[in-house]
């Protein structure tokens, strides 16, 4: 027998946990499942400076823990390290199979599966994953104590994580395709002031090379078209995200780039199936906007459940 919930949230990032806080506070029996530990992308962000309510910088991990504790306090059940091995989301009652064993069901599912770091898709990239190439500075920064490393990207994540990596590395060279950074001016200024950070603008990586482990990154100067190999001990890639929406493919038509189109109330085309957070088609993807999406989805879900039961 499937265990019955009112609301099942898939993904325990800011959107999913905000939805869980609102749903649980409305006394809906709420389950949040996540394939990792709660926090989504926030948990590996070393520092969050623009989330309202925290006058001082807060570490992503602490913020993630606070979201989780709040959702738990109102009675939401959070199941971590769970793989969804089966799903049927099109009917009135939606079911999920967890880890090939447990069945759960609910009339409402809120998909808040977010996004994962984008890969470059370059030769050598998958070969050196975990052998010199990383997407997580908090996880792997300490491996590069006293080393010379490269960061690829020019947005907020790239610049802020580059700053974080200077705690460990001897030098951090940021490689960015454009001739100026897209990151917030405050971080860019800090990066230029940091003696450990070097900047290589108008360059794009083309391949990764090495025997066994990564030894160099091949870059192209976009102005002169000249290519060269830069010796490196490690490369961190922060070039944006791709939505995790494989699960929804069978139920809705995904928009360009794999994102999910919703109404203003976070409804998808399938009744009872909502979507919230970074997986949605929208212009800005921030912790604050994810939390807003989760809130709206949970409120809309309450209304849906009232009609559903009537």
């Amino acid at each position, binding site marked *: 027998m499937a265990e019955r919930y009112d609301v099942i949230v898939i993904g325990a990032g800011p959107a999913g946990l905000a939805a869980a806080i609102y749903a649980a506070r409305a006394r809906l029996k709420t389950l949040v499942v996540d394939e*990792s530990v709660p926090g989504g992308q926030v948990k*590996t962000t070393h520092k969050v400076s623009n989330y309202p309510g925290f006058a001082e910088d807060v570490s992503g991990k602490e913020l993630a823990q606070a979201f989780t504790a709040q959702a738990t306090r109102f009675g939401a059940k959070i199941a971590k*390290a769970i793989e969804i091995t089966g799903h049927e989301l099109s009917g009135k009652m939606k079911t999920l199979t967890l880890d090939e064993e447990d069945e759960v069901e609910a009339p409402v599912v809120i998909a808040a599966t977010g996004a994962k770091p984008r890969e470059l898709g370059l030769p050598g990239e998958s070969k050196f994953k975990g*052998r010199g190439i990383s997407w997580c500075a908090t996880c*792997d920064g300490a491996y590069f104590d006293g080393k010379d490393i490269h960061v690829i990207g020019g947005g907020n994540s790239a610049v802020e994580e580059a700053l974080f990596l200077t705690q460990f590395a001897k030098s951090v060279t940021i490689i960015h395709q454009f001739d100026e950074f897209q990151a917030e001016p405050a971080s860019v200024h800090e990066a230029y002031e940091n003696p450990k950070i070097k900047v290589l603008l108008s360059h794009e990586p083309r391949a990764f090379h090495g025997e*066994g482990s990564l030894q160099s990154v091949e870059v192209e100067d976009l102005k002169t078209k000249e290519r060269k190999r830069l010796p490196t001990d490690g490369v961190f890639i922060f070039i944006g995200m791709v939505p995790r929406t494989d699960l929804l493919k069978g139920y809705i038509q995904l928009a360009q780039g794999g994102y999910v189109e919703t109404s203003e109330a976070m409804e998808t085309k399938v009744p009872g199936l909502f979507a919230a957070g970074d997986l949605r088609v929208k212009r800005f993807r921030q912790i604050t906007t994810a939390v807003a999406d989760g809130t709206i989805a949970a409120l809309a879900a309450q209304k849906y459940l009232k009609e559903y039961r009537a």
Partner: protein
Amino acid sequence: MSDNVTEIDGSRYEAEVLRSAVPVVLDFYSTECPPCEALAPKFESVAEQFAGRARFIKVFRQGNRELAQKLGVTGSPTLVFFKDGVEVGERMSGEEIKKSALKAQVDALV
């Protein structure tokens, strides 16, 4: 940690990993590493399923820098697979390690 998962330091690598009579899954983990925390329960669960047929061993990277360097491991978590004293199969690393994929890879070794 359960009975099915052992933690070693680098000095035990040869005896426990290379000379193991059964296949070994070696897990390099770090602190301040949410993907490592996420992997831990999956690792335990698969270890339990293969009890007696494969060994599941953890190595704390920060304390065993030399071994990580020797194996060219630069990210946590990283799973390295061994059979009869040699590394086999594809390494797995990062947040995307699925329990089903880990199970399938160990299944192919035992």
